[in-house]
């Protein structure tokens, strides 16, 4: 699904299904939602294009978002992987023991 698009010289992000908001209104909480979508869903974005994006402020925001979310696509599971390392062996130990008891 597409979450970032360029239309009429402006950048938009999809807040709820089919609700497109201009990028100058995007805040950190919206970004958190987008990040979750990017990890879990099929996350699509319009290519960044200076010519199509006339609004200078939108250019700045769109360019950064596009770069960062693009990078993320290469390694979607990084947050999960990194946090799961924390108690990995302990969780495995207790779960395995429980299964074997059953």
């Amino acid at each position, binding site marked *: 699904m597409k979450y970032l698009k360029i239309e009429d010289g402006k950048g938009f992000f999809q807040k709820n299904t089919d609700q497109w908001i201009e*990028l*100058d*209104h*995007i*805040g*950190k909480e919206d*970004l*958190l939602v987008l*990040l*979750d979508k990017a990890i879990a869903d099929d996350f699509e974005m319009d290519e960044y294009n200076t010519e199509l994006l006339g*609004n*200078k*402020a939108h250019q*700045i*925001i769109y360019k*950064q*978002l596009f770069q*960062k979310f693009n990078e993320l696509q290469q390694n979607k599971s*990084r*947050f*999960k992987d*990194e*946090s*799961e390392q*924390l*108690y990995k062996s*302990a*969780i495995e130990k*207790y*779960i395995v*023991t*429980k299964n074997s*008891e059953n």
Partner: protein
Amino acid sequence: MKKIDLHIHTKASPYSDSVYDFSISKLQEYVEKLSIDCIAITNHNLFDLEQFNQISERLENTVLPGIEIDIEKGHLLLISENTELDDFKNKCNQVENLIQSKSDYISVQQLKDIFTDLSKYLLVPHYDKNPILRPEIIEQLKPFITSGEVSSAKKFQYCINDTNSLVPVLFSDLRFTQQMTDFSPRQTFIDIDDTSLRAIKTCLMDKNKVFMHHSDGHRFFQIFENGQKLSTGLNVILGERSSGKTYTLKKIARLYENVKHIKQFELLETDEEKDKKKFDDLLTTKQCGVSEQFLKEFKEVVEDVVKIDRKKNEKRIEIYINGLLKVAAEEEKKDVYSKCTLFNESKFIETKDETLKQLITATQLLIENIQYRTLIDNRIPHEILKELAVDLMKKYEEVQQKNLKERWINSLVANIQKELQSSTAFEHVEDIDFYTILLENEKLRKFEKIATQIKTEKIIEQREVRRFKIVASTRRFTGAQELKNKSGIQTAFSDAFLLYDSPIEFLEELKKKERIPGTEFFKYFVDVSYKILNEHGAEISGGERSEFNLLDRIQHAHHYDFLLIDEPESSFDNLFLKNEVNEQIRQISKTMPVIIVTHNNTVGASIKPDYILYTKKEIVDSIPIYKLYSGNPSDPKLKTIDGEEISNYDIMLNCLEAGDIAYIERKQSYEILKN
């Protein structure tokens, strides 16, 4: 029974010894005088074959080739058969080449590579003697190591009694020079008939076959080179004035290391004020554990609070508020960049869930504890605990994942903000972490409360030591000089002391003193002082201070290998000696050799010694000759090494009771008084 000394130095090593001139005649004198059956030449990291051959030819007893090796920062004696000496020399040369500085040592692997078959040698590590060979290294060299060198009779006896210790051996570790006057009587007796390396090795596998004395097993050890023995327990030296008692004690102190010698009159006060100050300082040093324990938590608080920069926080808030006011005033001037929500967006603050971490640790403890397993299982099924642990850990993962995501967004937002800000002249409101500032303010508030409370003067610990009581109390510092004394450095505290009652400002003032490390600041808020009270609760007098000192010194003699006490009766009264001192001395003599010189019957007889020595001066042809008789307290006669005898009863009465007649007269006087 054979007497062996397998640790002898005859040549200075360039990196381990100071230079000395070896005297072969002195070595010969030593071996003959002390009737030693077998020695080993063990120089540091070298073996001089030529010199070894010279020694072997000169001496009649067995001389074994050996080397003392620096290995893994410890020392190891490696002793060989008296055969294949060229091969042994080659191997030792390899060790010598590897040790090229004071800090060099070889590894266990290198030792094995060089000497290949270690079973051919006798390996004796420094065991309870410095520099010790670490237990894990000894473990790696098993089964080739069965015995270990110790440095004193006390340690020898400890190893004999401790089932897990190696078989102990005592060796002299002497360097023989022409100037030597006394020889160390540190040798070991072993129960064998011949002095071959094979026989010695077999013997050193069995604790029942090693002794400190040729005929008295482990209860006695040889103290002087002439064969004079002492009990490993309590020895009393009696004798008239100027008969050589103190001389004997001094000789022991000179011959042995790690000796605690309480000298005559040493504990008696001479200058009351000076002695009291010295005593108080000593008490403070000795008891500093109490102060550390009391201030432990406060120290942590101070170390945490010291990091807070109160002024910087105030400044940040000021900048933030000014920024907000400015933005509000220029609202209509906002451009396309500054209108963006992200322009002034604040950062996500990381969740630090310590409680969750503690819960996980606690649950793991409940799962893994063995000691109280049944008790825990009775109330909470094991599988429920495991499920709880997994749930808590997963929750923790969730929190951490959220933190990681928020950190990712913070960095993204920061990049966008930077670019937006560089495109506009409009003022950006600097982000501020209110949470941390509030938390730090709260910390400061609590610190102020604790620092004020801690200055309330009170008793923090009382400890009974025999009839005395050590009392530790807190007290406020009363002036800048006291703070200066506390610091031990030349720096003025007058400005700081003016703020003593405002903990936060006081701490900020301390922070300005560069010479005081931050970890020491906690010491300047309250002082801990100590005093000793007698059984009546009164501060102790000068005499009582001496009594306390004596008991304290005897108690602390545990760290030493010998305890020597010279005429304790010179400083104390009989009741104190009988009730307090005797019991402690007997107690400590169970773990180490104790030697007391006395004239006093309370000490000499009532203490029930294990062994008695009697010194006597005789003038023969105008020349004084000092004789030393000894024996068990129940022996009718005391004997010198040469077999001269003297009546034990006469000695006891003469030395302790001023003779037979005086004893009977005194007894009669007491009877009259009693009736």
